[in-house]
């Protein structure tokens, strides 16, 4: 409006919005006479400059498709149509043409450091709809230390207007666009105009060939989202790296030359627009290294924009560069290459996939030894000992079924992970234990397995002596279920390898996730399979005997200990009432299974056996109902799951983005502990490392702020913070040094007091982010820091 004309004494006067849209009032929101009055008022109110001439100019402006450049406005705007007539239901190709005077330039959809994008608002006949504008790739306008993206040339912003099928032949379609823009040379001028034209509705569409050719030439400069290209970005404290991988191993750069490319980012505050990207070839792709913007804290989750790559043909200037729309997820540095496509033959993509697969295999193998699998490992050891007592075929069958149980559970997990990701939920390794109902069900399952091993009942009612039961071959169902159980319990144990392999799977496609999780399962199974398949290895196992019954009963107790741990997790999630519900459910289940074991054997009369089985089923159903009922109260758990508790005197504070930023601002060393109650390794770390006197002393001496990011229940803030490091599992401990620009120190998964004190030492030794400058201000800053630190 005219109110924009402030301080216009020695500045060019932008053309106002008062340009009347030719007499097609139906297509224009404001009736003509109202606009005229508004314009007159605006003209009268205009301050400074030359209101009289400005007003006169406004009313003498011819209405129509073109708003010409004037002495005050160095750009010409035109609304163009590539159709002379349009059929009902068809589409009119349209464009907004902007032609700046020589030396001036207009802007792209993201302007960069200076200026702003033109804004087009359509006013169309009833029923007609406009498609989003397509922006040709811009050029860089440099003015160190600033740079912006725009057009020195005449540009067409391409659009399309869809005409309703109900349009009557013989009527007209009114197209009007309100355009606001900024053009710059050394100074900048803003302006706005309404441009309009009319297209008759006819039986068939008639193209304006000359205009259509112009549009086609411009369309060639519009970047495309090309199928098969893969992109990924990573961010560190000083750089943004963008990787681009073409479909197949297409050669990007002419042989023997360095690749040349430009990246036009879509948003502010991510890269330094003025710094030229450093481009280099990476296996089967391209890497652009761009300086990070100094302005904005935090890391974006995606980087979008336009990538222009010089091809063999375009390098000589003969043709346009390859223009691609980029939408790149931000991943950890180490995972950048993992996005590379699986090129035919030996390519980087295969290497990444095979590496991830091998890591997953190794991680799965190590899972056999993790503390949270160890109790269940007993089931497998026992099953193996039992199987070894029989022929090789039985042993193999057992292992195959166990493996099937593991793999099917792994595939179920990957399916859920992919489904959650598709639904936009952030999920990570061990996420299933964030749901109290799952924790409760697991506890019941482990408890039942413990009762089984203690000899309270047998799944298969053969009756007879305990020794007979122990020496009998394990049944297929049991082997399969023990595989499921092992997978379910193994998942929260974030073995060191899993973090990378699972993160890769989560960021990669469905097929890759499948491969990685399958490898994980195979890793879990293969040691057992080897024992079953190789007779010589099997010979190592001790001969079966009565001792196996004792062992089996003794091994029940690690399972009961696991139940205690799960009950504690559930207690943290669903409070005391939830934990009590679980204990009641366990008692009920124990009663049912005892009845089954006491009266359900084949030796018992049929009627009594049926009754016992009925009691067991009802008790089990009741137990499950109790647990799921308790988990429904999970919402009230937040208060219980608060920070503090047993960790004792250490002043842990809950993590959130605001408190984190405030603490960082204060120039203190900040330690963030990503943890969850269901993560045993985390608990061990907290006892061993943070419980030690030397660590406590270091925390006190260096004035370290302790933030605890609790992932016990799903928390998007914590998930995002983890994702910033390319992680989706706990434990994860990171220390931020005093200096704001210093890289954070990531601690290893298993902590010792020495590791923590060493890292704190280094973090505290780095120079403070508060640097002394003028002596006069320094004293005041010191006092400000103490003030900020108090609350």
């Amino acid at each position, binding site marked *: *409006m005219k109110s924009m004309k*402030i301080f216009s004494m020695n500045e060019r006067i*932008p053309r106002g919005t008062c340009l009347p849209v030719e007499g097609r009032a139906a297509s224009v929101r404001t009736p003509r006479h109202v606009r005229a009055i508004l314009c007159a008022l605006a003209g009268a109110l205009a301050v400074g400059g030359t209101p009289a001439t400005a007003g006169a100019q406004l009313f003498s402006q011819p209405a129509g498709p073109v708003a010409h450049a004037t002495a005050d406005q160095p750009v010409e705007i035109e609304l163009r149509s590539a159709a002379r007539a349009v059929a009902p239901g068809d589409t009119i190709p349209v464009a907004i043409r902007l032609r700046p005077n020589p030396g001036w330039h207009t802007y792209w959809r993201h*302007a960069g*450091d200076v200026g702003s994008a033109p804004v087009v608002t359509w006013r169309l006949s009833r029923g007609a709809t406009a498609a989003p504008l397509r922006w040709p790739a811009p050029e860089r306008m440099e003015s160190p230390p600033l740079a912006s993206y725009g057009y020195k040339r005449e540009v067409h912003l391409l659009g399309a207007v869809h005409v309703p099928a109900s349009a009557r032949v013989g009527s007209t379609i009114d197209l009007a666009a309100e355009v606001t823009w900024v053009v710059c040379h050394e100074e900048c001028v803003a302006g706005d105009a309404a441009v309009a034209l009319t297209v008759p509705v006819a039986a068939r569409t008639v193209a304006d060939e000359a205009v259509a050719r112009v549009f086609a030439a411009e369309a060639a400069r519009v970047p495309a989202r090309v199928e098969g290209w893969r992109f990924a970005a990573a961010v560190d404290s000083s750089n943004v790296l963008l990787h681009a991988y073409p479909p197949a191993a297409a050669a990007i750069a002419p042989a023997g030359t360095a690749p040349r490319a430009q990246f036009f980012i879509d948003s502010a505050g991510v890269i330094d627009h003025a710094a030229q990207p450093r481009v280099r070839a990476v296996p089967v792709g391209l890497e652009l290294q761009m300086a990070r913007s100094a*302005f904005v804290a935090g890391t974006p989750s995606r980087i979008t924009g336009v990538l222009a790559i010089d091809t063999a043909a375009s390098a000589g200037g003969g043709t346009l560069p390859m223009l691609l729309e980029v939408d790149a997820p931000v991943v950890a540095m180490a995972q950048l290459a993992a996005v590379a496509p699986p090129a035919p033959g030996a390519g980087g993509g295969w290497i990444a996939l095979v590496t991830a697969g091998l890591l997953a295999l190794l991680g799965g193998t190590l899972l056999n030894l993790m503390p949270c699998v160890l109790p269940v490992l007993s089931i497998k050891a026992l099953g193996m000992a039992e199987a070894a007592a029989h022929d090789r075929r039985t042993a193999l069958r057992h292992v195959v079924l166990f493996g099937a149980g593991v793999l099917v559970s792994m595939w179920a997990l990957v399916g859920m992970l992919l489904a959650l990701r598709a639904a936009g939920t952030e999920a990570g390794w061990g996420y299933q234990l964030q749901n109290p109902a799952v924790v409760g069900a697991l506890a019941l399952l482990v408890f039942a397995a413990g009762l089984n091993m203690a000899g309270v009942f047998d799944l298969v009612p053969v009756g007879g002596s305990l020794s007979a039961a122990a020496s009998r071959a394990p049944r297929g169902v049991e082997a399969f279920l023990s595989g499921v159980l092992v997978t379910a319990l193994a998942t929260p144990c974030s073995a*060191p390898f899993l973090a990378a392999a699972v993160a890769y799977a989560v960021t990669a496609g469905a097929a890759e996730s499948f491969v990685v999780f399958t490898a994980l399962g195979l890793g879990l199974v293969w040691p057992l399979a080897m024992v079953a398949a190789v007779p010589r290895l099997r010979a190592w196992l001790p001969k079966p005997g009565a001792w196996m019954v004792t062992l089996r009963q003794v091994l029940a107790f690690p399972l009961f200990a696991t139940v205690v741990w799960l009950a504690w997790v559930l207690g943290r999630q669903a409070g005391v009432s939830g934990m009590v519900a679980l204990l009641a459910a366990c008692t009920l289940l124990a009663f049912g299974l005892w009845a089954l074991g006491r009266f359900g054997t084949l030796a018992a009369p049929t009627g009594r056996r049926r009754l016992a089985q009925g009691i067991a089923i009802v008790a089990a159903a009741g137990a499950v109902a109790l647990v799921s009922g308790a988990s429904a109260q999970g919402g009230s758990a937040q208060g219980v799951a608060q920070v503090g508790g047993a960790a004792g005197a250490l002043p842990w504070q809950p993590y959130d983005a605001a408190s984190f930023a405030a603490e960082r601002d204060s120039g203190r060393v900040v330690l963030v502990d990503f943890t969850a109650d269901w993560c045993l390794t985390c608990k061990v770390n907290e006892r061993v490392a943070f419980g030690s006197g030397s660590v406590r002393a270091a925390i006190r001496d260096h004035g370290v702020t302790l933030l605890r990011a609790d992932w016990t229940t799903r928390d998007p803030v914590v998930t995002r913070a983890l994702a910033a490091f390319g992680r989706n599992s706990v434990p994860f401990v990171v220390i931020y040094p005093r200096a704001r*620009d210093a890289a954070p120190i990531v601690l290893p*998964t298993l902590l010792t007091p020495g590791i923590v004190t060493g890292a704190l030492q280094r973090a505290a030794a780095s120079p403070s982010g508060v640097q002394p400058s003028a002596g006069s201000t320094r004293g005041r800053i010191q006092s400000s820091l103490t003030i900020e630190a108090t609350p």
Partner: protein
Amino acid sequence: MTSTTTPTRRSRKLLIFAAVFGALLLFGGLSARRMLAAKADPASLPDLLTVGGPAPAFTATDTRGASHSLAGYAGKWVVLEWFNHGCPFTKKHYALVNGVGNSQAMQQEYTGRGVIWLSVVSSGPGRQGYTSAKKAEDMARDKGAAPTAIIRDTAGVLGRLYGARNTPQYAIVDPQGVLRYAGAIDDRRGSSPKEIAGATNYVRAALDAGLAGQPIAVAQTQPYGCEVKY
């Protein structure tokens, strides 16, 4: 025990088993270490300029010849606003929408709450945006602008000291002399005053939080607008 193996054979087996087990653990541990070392480098942390650090000390002259030094304003919040009367983005925030200008309203409100508001013109002689002191005064009066003072930074010293790149651009200094905000006025990077109604005003948010003793949520943003014409 019904084992048929001799004690020596059994202990040899045990030894081999322990060796294999140990090797596996060692390999796993070493690989994990390398893995973590590789992952430790992607720092995702803000690379902020000097927000949170001491604001550079300055002494500058206003349109009336009076001198303003940051040290002299100790104990008060100070707003520095880079200004160019000809820049469409500055105009956007001085435009009267329903009789109210965005910048004028902010100046009135916050100077009323004891904040020192310095509008800084860093345009060099002969460059766009450069005016005489009197013209600057007249324009401010015409527009109803109400800063504490208009600083004439014709040599661009103050602008460069604070890294001013755009008009409009803001720096906010707290009573202890710490730079607490630097960047854009709001999150709508266009030139039309119509955008102001729906925008998140970072300067208001920072001042409101700071004056209330609260932490400032968004402390640094990328400014937008015209270039500063040094």
